[in-house]
């Protein structure tokens, strides 16, 4: 297990390195680079050269990349081109804000979706199951930004019960009650989206397990239905769900740019778009890096959890089941 863990971490570092290398190259290959955007059109050629030199943009991409990695190893994410602000100062607060929003929505949808899906698998095509299907269709089909606007129109503008947008009311930063009120609408939007997927996964993976021979055997032995579901079926059904959750983990930091925009949530998804438009390479690279780290951690956690829920999975010994 320890050996496996170390190997995975080493692999991850290699993967991260490749990701940053490729991203760096791609960003620099995109048309309309920073020399075009940052260097104001009023600048003469001579002045433009001086500026490009000051920003280090006149060096080969490879040299720029090595410098970036060098800074990174010292914990320096770099500065924005446009106004020379430390990347960390802009980035970290938005990461926190996104984790709050997405974390609440994600946990809430898990708490609802998994039990609901399990229940529905035992009462296939019952009222609850039909309702879940309906919610899923709506959740899948409705664009999140549009649902967000509908909720705003109703609860913030017409009824005036809830705040329209933002994370806090100005001057009330840090007030949990205020945060809670601001969370209700965006979390509702996001939860509906997650719920649609997760309840379907939970239900179908339970149904699949419930048809297995050992379940029939258990029932034939006269094991109580409750015990069949929770003891025999659930643990096996959880494996595909864990896979999905592990892969979805990066959403927590990647955020939902559209939802963040509609609700003016100061998160990382919005930041990424702004910075992409502004061609702020150092911020884009930092966001890519954070997202990549979380993807890798998410996968690692999922793999470890397999072993926890299913003893047949033996990490590091080749072939895993499920």
């Amino acid at each position, binding site marked *: 297990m320890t050996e496996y863990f170390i190997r995975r971490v080493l692999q991850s570092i290699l993967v991260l390195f490749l990701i940053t290398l490729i991203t760096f190259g791609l960003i620099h290959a995109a048309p309309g680079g920073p020399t075009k955007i940052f260097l*104001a059109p*009023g600048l003469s050629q001579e*002045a433009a050269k001086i500026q490009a030199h000051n920003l280090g943009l006149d060096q080969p991409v490879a040299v720029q990349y090595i410098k970036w990695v060098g800074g990174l190893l010292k914990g320096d994410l770099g500065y924005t081109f446009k*106004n020379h602000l430390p990347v960390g100062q802009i980035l970290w607060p938005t990461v926190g804000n996104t984790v709050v929003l997405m974390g609440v929505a994600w946990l809430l949808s898990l708490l609802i979706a998994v039990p609901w899906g399990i229940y529905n698998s035992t009462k296939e095509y019952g009222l609850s199951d039909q309702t879940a299907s309906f919610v899923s269709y709506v959740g899948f089909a409705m664009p999140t930004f549009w649902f967000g606007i509908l909720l705003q129109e109703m609860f913030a503008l017409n009824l005036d019960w809830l705040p*329209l947008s933002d994370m806090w009311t100005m001057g009330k930063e840090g007030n949990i009650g205020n945060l809670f009120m601001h969370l209700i609408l965006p979390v509702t939007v996001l939860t509906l989206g997650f719920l649609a997927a997760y309840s379907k996964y939970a239900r179908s993976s339970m149904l699949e397990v419930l048809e297995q021979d050992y379940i029939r055997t258990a029932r034939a032995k006269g094991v109580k239905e409750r015990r069949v579901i929770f003891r025999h079926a659930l643990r096996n059904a959880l494996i595909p769900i864990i896979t999905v959750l592990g892969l979805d983990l990066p959403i927590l930091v990647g955020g939902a740019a559209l939802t963040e925009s*509609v609700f003016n949530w100061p998160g990382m998804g*919005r930041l990424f778009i702004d910075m992409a438009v502004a061609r702020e390479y150092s911020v884009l690279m930092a966001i890519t890096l954070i997202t990549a780290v979380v993807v890798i951690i998410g996968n690692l956690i999922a793999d470890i959890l397999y072993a926890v829920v299913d003893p047949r999975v033996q990490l590091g010994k080749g072939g895993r089941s499920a």
Partner: protein
Amino acid sequence: MVKTKKWIALLATLTLFGALFVGCSNTKSSESSTKAPTGSEVDASKSTDKPVDGGTLTFSSFSDIVSINPIYVDNSASSDAARFVMANLYDLDRKGNLVAEPWSLAAAPLEVSADGKTYTVKLKKEAKWSDGQPVTADDVIFTINTFRDPKAGSPGIGQFDKVDKLDKVDDQTIKITLKQVFAPFQYSLFNQLIPYHVLKDVKPEQLKDNPYGKDPAKTVTNGAWKWTEWKQKQYLTFDKDPNYWGQKPHIDKVVYKIYADQNTEVSALIKGDTDLIQAIPVTQIEAVKKKSGISVLLAPGPLYEYVAFNFKPENFPDKFVPFTGQKTRQAIATALNRQGMIDNILKGTGTKLNAPFLPGTWADPGSAVTEYKYDPAAAKKLLAEDGWVAGSDGILTKDGHRFSFELQYNAGNSRRQQVAAVIQQNLKEVGIEVTPKAIDFSSWADNNLTPGKFPAVLLSWSLNNPDPDGEQTFSSKYFPPTGQNMGWYKNDKLDKLWVEGYSTVDQAERKKIYEEVGKEISTDLPYVFLYQYGQPEGLGPRVKYAEADAPEASLPYGYFFHIQNWWVTQ
């Protein structure tokens, strides 16, 4: 380039993300004040109450500032913020004239010498920085020298490239001597200053990295409010400066709130979370107007849209430029239903124009220009006179070349998408085949606009300077890739007229020259000028001002015109 007209900027305004880079430097547009055809719908109550002191005004935008250091302000977000904390050397009156207002740093109107080359600036004795130091001639000289220094990397460098020398006459008086007579120069002084006593030891190449302009605590200002907070991507706050040297404003606190997009901003205006928004999407105007208490100001701003032709044969298959004939270009102008575009796509927030001068400005050539009324039959006649004959598929041909071209615009701009479709339809009716093509803005700028490689484009200019000089846009001195004459247009008469236009400071004489320009350019048509258009401003019910201080859409930053005199109710 005093008149920094930037498509980069301009375009970005209207892209999906809507970052408004428009107004670089400072200078700005024209003065169509009373001309605004779509009258502003300010409700009468705005002017009846008596001003009250106190309260908070919240205005919003969809982009964050970059820096409010005047040397580096190159987008309207930063510029908007800077207006609250920095006094201008000179201001603009409603007509776009350069004046010394009570809140300007200048004490008297700008003096120009008889030969038109020397400008004398006199500062107010009482003007002070927020740290108590006086604003002096040293600040003015230091500011202009920093703008001019390539090492400082200011986007406004071109505003001062005609300056020959700067002389300090006394602490409050500066003489600026130009290398040549250049009338538009005066608008370079519609600008803000940086404090010499704070920044004199900073190397020009390090000024951009200096916290000045980015850290509220380290930004010494000289305006009516002082900068108290910047929460990135969320808001900035400005509080009334108790030590301000001039008459104190009515409003205590100004909050500049940043929204993710325009629709969110409109909802915030309706909810009352913000009091002023600068640009309501035209599709939402009706919805906003229905809400009681919200005023929508529809007057068009200092922007105009056009179709630019390319005259360089290399940009066409077979090296055949279909636009060579003047009558052909006139036919295209006649075939386009511009009023229809204004009514249906702009929802009335535009005015037709025929020359690159905004309607109502002092340089507006008025009836001297050639007018083009929508008339497909007349257009067909003009095309026939120019030698075009209908081919078997209904498309015109000349010497074996079909009249077919690609019209490029930036992807994500829904207004241009609709206008391009109308152009396609209108021209099809007279036998010209147009293929509209949307291209991602940055690649478009890189691959087509800057190098001047395209058949025709649909684009805008933002006139961020009230001066009519247009040499850099239309003169053959300014061919791509360094110049802005991206369609390779060459007209010797105009080349000469532009130079004459800025080589005298006598406004009456200039007006005559620009009348000539207007006549020539509207006849020869390097572009088909479509319309002046605007961004409707929305004002919440709490915002009050006297009629004389009402926002002025046609001016740069006119949405805050005379804001020192505004007040808010609780």
